[in-house]
Every structure is written in structure tokens, then in C-alpha cells.
């Protein structure tokens, strides 16, 4: 079924056992993002140490795609520099807008390539991007905080 390209086992695993879910006490910034078309929401805490992502934790409600994507994202950016994290995000955005024409670089995106199938379902792309956009927002704000 076409659906299996959307709901890969990896995704359902992340959905059932999300990583870094539950907000940390310590944070540099907190952001709250919503998906206005479906009502899904996420709160994300980012802790920076200089230019390094020390911790990303999140909480929220959403479909399996948005929750799994957030879980994958939070694990990927952990311990990376903000710049590095943002290049991963670029790569993921490119995958999401590919309409199924690329499969994604597993070296960069790791479990994130399991979300490649989402790009064939235009209505679901924004689900997959919810957590990533929250992270981007937090990273840019956090960087300003750190500069102060």
C-alpha cells in the first residue's frame, strides 16, 4: 500500500517512544509553534552552550508524522553547533519539498530519511516540519540571547 511509504516502522517507533519529549527545566529559549490548519501544537526548549546545542526538549500534541519528526529532529541536533544543526534542517526541508524525487542523505538525516515518503503527501509536509520550524525559530532566538 502507498501508505507504507508514509508510515515506516521507524516513524511509528518514534511516535510510540519519542525521544527528548518532556520539557527540561533549564533552557536558553522556549518557543511555541502551532499548525493552524489542524490544531497541532508543540512547545520546544532549547539550551545552548555558546554555539552548541546542549539540549532540545519538547512537548505537544500531534499526529504520528509531526511527533516522530520532532523526535528525530531533537536527537539529530543534540550536541551539534547551531550552524551545523541549521544545515541539517536545510537538508530536511529540501527533502520535504522534493515531492518524492529524492530519498534524502542518510549520513546527514539518519532516521530522518524515513520521512522521505511524506513529501509525496502535500497535506502532511507541514506536519513533518512543525518541530523543525520550532527548532529553527528557537535556534535563531537563542543565538541572539547568547550574543547578549
Amino acid at each position: 500500500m502507498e501508505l507504507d511509504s508514509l508510515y515506516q516502522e521507524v516513524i511509528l517507533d518514534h511516535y510510540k517512544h519519542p525521544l527528548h519529549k518532556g520539557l527540561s527545566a533549564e533552557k536558553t529559549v522556549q518557543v511555541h509553534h502551532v499548525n493552524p490548519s489542524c490544531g497541532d501544537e508543540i512547545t520546544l526548549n532549547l539550551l545552548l552552550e555558546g554555539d552548541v546545542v546542549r539540549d532540545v526538549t519538547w512537548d505537544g500534541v500531534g499526529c504520528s508524522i509531526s511527533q516522530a519528526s520532532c523526535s528525530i529532529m531533537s536527537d539529530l541536533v543534540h550536541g551539534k553547533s547551531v550552524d551545523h544543526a541549521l544545515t541539517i534542517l536545510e537538508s530536511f526541508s529540501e527533502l520535504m519539498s522534493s515531492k518524492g524525487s529524492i530519498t534524502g542523505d542518510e549520513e546527514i538525516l539518519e532516521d530522518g530519511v524515513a520521512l522521505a515518503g511524506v513529501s509525496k503527501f502535500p497535506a502532511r509536509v507541514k506536519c513533518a516540519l512543525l518541530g523543525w520550524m520550532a527548532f529553527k525559530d528557537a535556534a535563531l532566538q537563542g543565538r541572539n540571547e547568547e550574543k547578549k
Partner: protein
Amino acid sequence: MTLLDVATIKADFPIFEKKMRNDARLVYLDSGATSQKPRQVMAAEQYFYTHQNAAVHRGSHLLAEEASAAYEGARETVAAFLGAKSDEIIFTKSATESLNLLAYSFSNSATGRFALGVGDEILLSEMEHHANLIPWQQLAKRTGATLKWFEVTPDGRLDLSQIDQLLSARTKIVALTHQSNVLGTINPITEIAKKAKEHGALFVLDACQSVPHFATDVSKLGVDFVTFSGHKMLGPTGIGVLWGRSELLAAMEPFLFGGSMIETVTMESATWAPAPRKFEAGVPNMAQAVGLAAAINYLEAIGMDKVHEHEVALTTYALEGLQTIKGLTIIGPTNMDSRGGVLSFALDGIHPHDGCQVLDQYGIAVRTGHHCAWPLMRKYGVSGTTRASFYIYNDLADIDALVTGIEATKKYFKVS
């Protein structure tokens, strides 16, 4: 159970010939969002463009005459359908525009019963569509008036226990939905409108989910304004209706200004044509109005009482079928008491968006999300629901398909 002859009806709707994913037939359960269109409606629009197209009310050539007659004829059809007078029918682009028209007309009317200020109140409910909430929020912001609202009960009814506190001499506007687009609840409008009148409040009825589904006689409801959209009742997009009592329309200031809505114009000022023209600035959506009239003719040929009976039969059957599914919770009334053909539900362990995706593989079109009723979602503690809504082209097999589809969804996500 009195069901319509769905096979015959379906033959009028070309979209049902479409093959869905995996070659499945279309099971369209999203009429609450927009209805499908019969050939007769498409033909009426095409006839207008082919034979009559000209700007209405402007010019005296043959086409302008025929176009005006077709457009005004559509107004008469709508009026007769609602038990109203023709000059009480204003064509807009949608219910959303109708409601904004009211809210802006009220704030443009600086004096009299439309004028709001600090201390005045607008009474709504928690089950309103954003289209019948935000225009009033904004009106309150512009004028300093206060919003009040009826809450909803856990079983999806308006909580009227506080009505005597909520309605008072301060209440200037009551704006309520006739039937909830999420819960399916039909609200006791006549009863509330009677009380509103005692306090001198204006009553605005959002009839988006009622006029398409059961006979609605505006002269008997005791309300002052009624709004709905053509596209939810077999008609085209781009055409909506606002009905208002003559004396109110006469006293209200316009919302949109421009051509066709004037009586005289100088460089400094202008005066307005009488209603409904006063509220129809610019060249209107003519073909769409004609299409809406064709839709009404189609519905009247069936009979609105039969339409309603059909939907009650479908909904009764759906409530029974859905409630056999383990882990499924109906959000809204679980009995057919004052209830129409809109059914929302939640499935344990499966987000609506994910469930919808599986149903889509079987050609089943349902709506998921907050249904433009975000405050209501918050009230029920969910981020969204899955909603099935029925119309004249649905049959029991569609509901069986939904129930089977939900079982398949549970299996797919390994939820027992």
C-alpha cells in the same frame, strides 16, 4: 427509516464517477465542508455564461436585461425557499462575508440600535465556527463592547442554564449557529430568539449547516438575520446569502462601497440605493447566484423534509455502527434528539490526521482537525476530531465503508 433513492441522485453528480486511490469508489463524507454539485447546477452556470452573460443592472441591451432577470430570478428563488421577501435577500460571496458584512455594517452605523459601545454585550456560544466568532471579537474590539458566550455541555448541547444571566438589557447582539458544524447539535433557536427579543437584542443566525439540510422558514424562527453559503448546499462557490428583516436592512449602513450600491453620487458624497442593492457593491457573482437557484430547485424537487429524514436515518445508522468500535468516542450528542448529519469522533491511540490518511486509501473523504472551531476543541480537550458529514448522495453502504475503514485503520496502527 426513509432513505432517498441515492442511486438516482448519485447519477446527477459526475464526481462519483471518479476513481479514488487504489481504484476505490468515492465515499464522500465531507459535505459539512462543502457539498458536491449536480449536473443541473453546473449546467445552469454554463447556460448563463453561454446565453445571458452581461453585467447585471448596468445597460439596457438584451443580454443585460436577461442577465438581470436571471440574477433577480435567483433572488426570488432564494426568498421563496426561506419564506422571505425578495428584497430581504442579499447576495454575498459566502457566509463568512455575510457575517463580516453585518459586523462592519453595525460599526458603520454610528447611531441607533446597531451602534455598540462600552457596556454593551455580544452573546455567542463556544460551538461557533470561527466565521461567527472572529467578526464579533473584532467588532467588540472596535467598539469597546464585551463578548459573552453560552458554554457547551459534555454531551454537546448548548448550556442554557445561565441564559437569564447571559441575556440582559446590555445584550445588543446574539449570534448563534443553528446546527453545529462539529457536533451536529441543532440548537433551540426559536426559544433563545424569543428571550433575546424580550431584551431588544438583534439575533444573527449562522445557518450554514441548517439551510442546506432541513426546511428553514426565516419568518417563523424569530431571528433578525440569517447567513449561509451556497457551496454547502449543492451550489457553486463564491455565492452566499444574508437575509435580514426589511426594516433593519433599511436602517443599516452599508459595508462595501462602490458601483451599483448607490442612488446618487457627487465628487463629495453619495447616497445609497435601497436594500438589497445597498449591500451589493460591484458586479456581483451572477452565474453563481443562478447556480445557487438551480441547487435550490434541485433540493426542492426532493423536498427538504425528505432531505432531513434521509440524514436522520443515515446518522442514526452511523451512530449505531460507530459505537460498536472499541476505543471510539463520539464528540457530540449520541442520540438523535435535535441532531443533524454531522458526526465527530475521536479514536484512542490514533491521531485524526493519521486516521484520515488510512481512510483516504479506501476512497473515504472525511474531515479532520479543529473544523474552524478551535475554542470548542479546547473545551473537549482535543487538538482535533475526525468528522463525517452526510448529504443526499450518501447511503448506508457509505457508512458501512466508514466503519470498516476505521477498523482497518486500527489494524494498520496496531491499536486494539
